[in-house]
């Protein structure tokens, strides 16, 4: 968006006319537009309805080195289209060292090097492996501050908690350094994705000046996740501290779990991090591992997203893009067969693909929504349960980051506020309650909505973005003739209908409580899990459906809602087929539920 603005300015045209952009909720283009900026995901969505990408004569794919899912699919598509359309020009821009890999992939296309204006960066390693990389990182920052000449510091850590913790410790010690050793002031800024934008903006503040005239100059230290590695550029960084880890999403198709795990970075990633030190003048990079470890233990390239993700959504997109042959589809890094099989099976259970792997009507409709297939199917089938309005809200709330704020300083207060919205049957309904309360506040007194959110420990930013997601999804529903209806709130089935409707999409994410204790076991994958401590679920449900599986020190299921086993048999009879289910507690429990239901119906009939 800002690039489009800049280019429009330099071309002396109005943004949105000759030069436009298109992002998730906003299309700022006209028929006059000749240059359009958009995300890789948006271009992919466009390609679903225009397989030849006939609107464009030249396509530039920037930041291809990030190897997002959308970029990888686009590259494979463009490679195909280029054979049919010799007039189409394709430019792939990558900022890494494996340019040859891209070149080879695109049939030995010409390769151009654009040398960046970077300064040399001196690399340092530790002579021995570090026993505690966080501690070592903190010490290194302080050592740099105490002994190196002027220049800002960038430290890479893995996640929010680790970063906040490190920031506190560095601040404490830096204060002492200033007192005891006459070091200059040190300003410390955390940086991670979920940080509110105004706080993210602070990393661009100038480093503090010396405390007194002629004193040691001050500097700033940014403690960041790997978002400072490629996507964000901060000038003035001269020192980089690299412990060699980052959080990476990894998908395990055998237990169908996508998790964020701390893993060693790749060599390419380490080089990229080092490069951050040389943007304004020659810099230094301190790696908290040995040179031998760099050469032997780090992999060459970070695994592209396509090898680390659940591909259910991707397969649906590919089908919609007209890719028939998934086996020989010419991706730069084809995913593992097992991952592909899982995706096909999930879509088959969701009835988006038939048994031969062909797109069904429901699948075609589901691909119209920019959502995971399970969410899309839940949304599409919600009118059958008389609660599409509510499911639409829940879907939007699940598509944005957590709306409940829980700052470390006032956890207790935040929990009390959350309890105001709590629904005994589960977290999804609690989200819905909070959203309804927010909407009520917003319509009655829009000016105070922000303040109200702050008081109730709700994220105004995420609630309003849920609102725009909702508006976007609503438009898609209306275009495809999906009714927006609600069960009257007074009806005793109001919440029951919502819970049943959720199962229509999430029947594959169900867990049953084990006979002993608090442990639940996921159906079919047989994973022992605990309900995440953030849950509001109070009633002791034997069966729950969950939104995500979180792998931290324990295996948790987060955002859970209680359900009844007989619903499973009604709503997803193919998945919970008694003939194919493995023997065990789960099957026995389901059989009991079925029996109970049969008897109840028989009694009803008899009494009639």
């Amino acid at each position, binding site marked *: 968006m800002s690039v489009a603005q800049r280019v429009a300015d330099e071309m002396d045209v109005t943004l949105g006319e000759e030069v436009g952009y298109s992002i998730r909720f906003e299309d700022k283009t006209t028929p006059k537009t000749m240059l359009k900026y958009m995300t890789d995901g948006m271009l992919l969505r466009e390609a679903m309805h225009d397989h030849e990408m006939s609107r464009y004569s030249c396509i530039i794919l920037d930041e291809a080195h990030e190897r997002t899912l959308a970029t990888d699919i686009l590259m494979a598509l463009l490679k195909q289209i280029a054979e049919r359309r010799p007039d189409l020009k394709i430019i792939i821009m990558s900022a890494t*060292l494996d*340019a040859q890999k891209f070149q*080879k992939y695109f049939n*030995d296309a*010409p*390769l*151009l*090097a654009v*040398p960046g204006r970077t300064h*040399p*960066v*001196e*690399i*340092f*390693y*530790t*002579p*021995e*492996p570090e026993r505690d*990389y966080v*501690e*070592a990182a903190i*010490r290194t920052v302080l*050592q740099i501050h105490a002994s190196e000449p002027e220049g800002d510091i960038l430290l890479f850590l893995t996640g929010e908690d680790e970063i906040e913790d490190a920031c506190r*410790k560095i601040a*404490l*010690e830096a*204060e*002492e*350094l200033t007192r005891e050793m006459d070091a200059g002031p040190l300003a410390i800024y955390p940086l991670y994705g979920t940080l509110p934008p105004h706080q993210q903006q602070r990393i661009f503040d100038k480093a503090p000046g010396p405390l007194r005239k002629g004193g040691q100059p001050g500097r700033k230290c940014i403690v960041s996740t790997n978002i400072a590695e490629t996507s964000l550029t901060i000038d003035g960084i001269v020192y980089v501290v690299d412990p060699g*880890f980052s959080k990476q999403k*990894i*998908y*395990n198709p*055998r237990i169908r779990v996508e998790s964020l795990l*701390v*893993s060693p970075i790749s060599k390419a990633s380490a*080089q990229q991090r080092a*490069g951050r030190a040389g943007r304004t003048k020659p810099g230094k990079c301190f790696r*908290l*591992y040995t*040179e031998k470890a760099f050469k032997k*233990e780090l992999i060459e390239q970070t*695994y592209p997203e396509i*090898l*680390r993700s659940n591909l259910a959504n991707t397969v649906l997109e590919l089908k919609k893009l007209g890719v028939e*042959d*998934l*086996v*020989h*589809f*010419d991706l730069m890094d*084809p*995913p*593992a*067969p*097992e*991952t592909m*099989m899982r995706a*096909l099976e999930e879509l088959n259970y969701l009835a988006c693909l038939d048994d031969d792997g062909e797109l069904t009507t429901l699948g075609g409709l589901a691909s119209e929504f920019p959502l995971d297939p399970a969410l899309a199917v839940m949304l599409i089938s919600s009118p059958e349960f008389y609660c599409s309005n509510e499911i639409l809200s829940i879907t939007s709330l699940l598509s944005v980051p957590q709306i409940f704020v829980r700052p470390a300083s006032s956890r207790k207060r935040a929990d009390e506020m959350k309890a105001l919205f709590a629904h005994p049957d589960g977290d999804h309904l609690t989200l819905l309650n909070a959203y309804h309360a927010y909407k009520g506040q917003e319509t009655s007194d829009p000016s105070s909505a922000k303040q109200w959110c702050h008081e109730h420990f709700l994220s105004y930013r995420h609630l309003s973005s849920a609102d725009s997601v909702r508006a976007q999804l609503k438009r898609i529903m209306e275009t495809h003739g999906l009714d927006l209806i609600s069960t009257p709130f007074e009806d005793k089935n109001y919440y029951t209908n919502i819970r049943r409707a959720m199962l229509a999409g999430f029947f594959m994410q169900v867990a049953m409580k084990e006979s002993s204790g608090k442990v639940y076991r996921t159906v079919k994958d047989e994973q022992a899990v605990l309900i995440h401590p953030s849950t509001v679920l109070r009633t002791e449900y034997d069966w729950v459906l969950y939104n995500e599986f979180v792998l931290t020190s324990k295996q948790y299921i987060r955002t859970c809602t209680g359900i009844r086993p007989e619903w499973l048999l009604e709503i997803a009879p193919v998945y919970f087929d008694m003939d194919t289910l493995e023997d065990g507690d789960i099957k026995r429990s389901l059989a009991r539920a079925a029996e109970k239901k049969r008897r109840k119906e028989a009694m009803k009939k008899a009494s009639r």
Partner: protein
Amino acid sequence: MVMRRERDDSDDEDIPLHHKRPFGAGLKRKKIEFVKATDADASNTIKNLGKETTSIGDVYASIVLGGGSRDSSSKPEGTSDEKDDQKEDAAEKEPEPPTCPVCSLPITTTLQQHEASLAHQVSLEHSHPPSALDRSRMGLKALESQGWDPDSRLGLGREGEGSRFPIKVARKEDTLGIGATRTQPKQAVQEKPRALTGKEMRALADKERRKGERLQAEIYGRVDVEKYLRGNGGEDGL
């Protein structure tokens, strides 16, 4: 440098808790040492782009890779031919030990014995076990219908070049640095390896026995108990 850090760490354990300095006071005590990279290339990211690139100044020039691959592909055939010739020559000159076509070792024993030998067994071309994937899965059927064979030991992709298995998931719950191991092998290594000489062994056993005797004398000072115990393996020491 390294040794000093190790020692400092162990000193740390000996300081009584109330004498330990707060977290902030550690800067001078625990210095993180660094050594310069020996690989000069690593410090400059631009160099690694390689020779096959064109500078933006030469926009019109373009370099296409390839050409060299054809020469190398023709070579292996030639060399294998030569090898066959040599084999034939060798067979003519020394007819006694015939060469086994499978493991290309001379057969010095009977054919049966040779075929049972490990070297021969290892070189045998054997079929791979079939893939462990459940054949009834819908996903597998869909992939098979598009021409993927689970037993082919190939991945997906135009030429089956894709990875065959998903990326392994390893959970990390500690803050160990890269290359560090949880056990501290240094101490273990120092104590373990030295084997005792016979003389030392005897001396040690002697010492142990005397220690045992002294203990017994102290605890069971009465003569009758001592006698009784001696009969029961007091000789062995402890």
